[in-house]
């Protein structure tokens, strides 16, 4: 298998293991194995991205105004 042939199936093997032939190429080709390692690493890092930021308070203010305007809410409770 050549690098060009591997390249054609790359989208399929990043999230899987690939065939024996593809694995054999990766075992002997540093360029392709580095590429696969990088793409898998990027996907792994992306999974770890957690929501970090809260929206500005004006977002809720806008929602509240619209809710009142549309009559979607009833009177507020007291705790």
């Amino acid at each position, binding site marked *: 298998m050549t690098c060009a042939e591997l390249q054609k199936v790359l989208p399929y093997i990043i999230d899987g293991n690939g065939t024996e032939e593809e694995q054999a190429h990766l075992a002997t080709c540093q360029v392709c194995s580095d590429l696969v390692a990088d793409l898998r690493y990027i996907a792994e890092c992306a*999974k770890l991205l957690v929501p970090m930021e809260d929206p500005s308070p004006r977002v809720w203010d806008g929602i509240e105004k619209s809710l009142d305007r549309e009559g979607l*809410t009833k009177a*507020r409770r007291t705790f």
Partner: protein
Amino acid sequence: MTIAKKILANGMSEHEAIDLAKQGDAECFEALYGLHKRRVYSLCLRMVGNTAEAEDLTQEAFLQLYRKISTFRGESAFSTWLHRLAVNVVLMHLRKKGLPEVSLEETLEPQQEDGPKKDIGTRDNVLAGSIDRVNLERAIESLPPGYRIIFVLHDVEGYEHNEIAEMMGCSIGNSKSQLHKARMKLRDLLKLSRAEKAAARR
């Protein structure tokens, strides 16, 4: 104490808050917003890459939530349902703006420029260990919109290709192809950013 915390501190579960919100309880609306605002806003921000637009879309997503909450039957988790609703709000917005999401002419055939580069050189160029949250977020922001959306939906948010294809109205192969191109582009952007940092240190 925020409304969300107050409601939960009073022993009310999210499930009960949803039931009361269906009856128009204002505090429960606010509590649900408090519980889910960060995740919805982050999704919008990552998909559109712009704070002002992300805020507008967050507002629209929650308004739609409140308009439709009576139709929530609990077949899926509330957060899953809300999240899907938010994705649809963003996609609808992008369609209105006429931004390309996924070109339907795309095939799975990778373009030549996306292939392995032979001039990569030493193993120092492998990304392993070099990505942190900030530079990955920045690189995602720099992606072309079509790539960014697929990447965020699949790799960050964990949607499957069949779900993405359904939401975006494209084929599963198309979604896979775009994801691959997005990752390739990110690899270039992350390497460039690392090279720039290294040059600045010299």
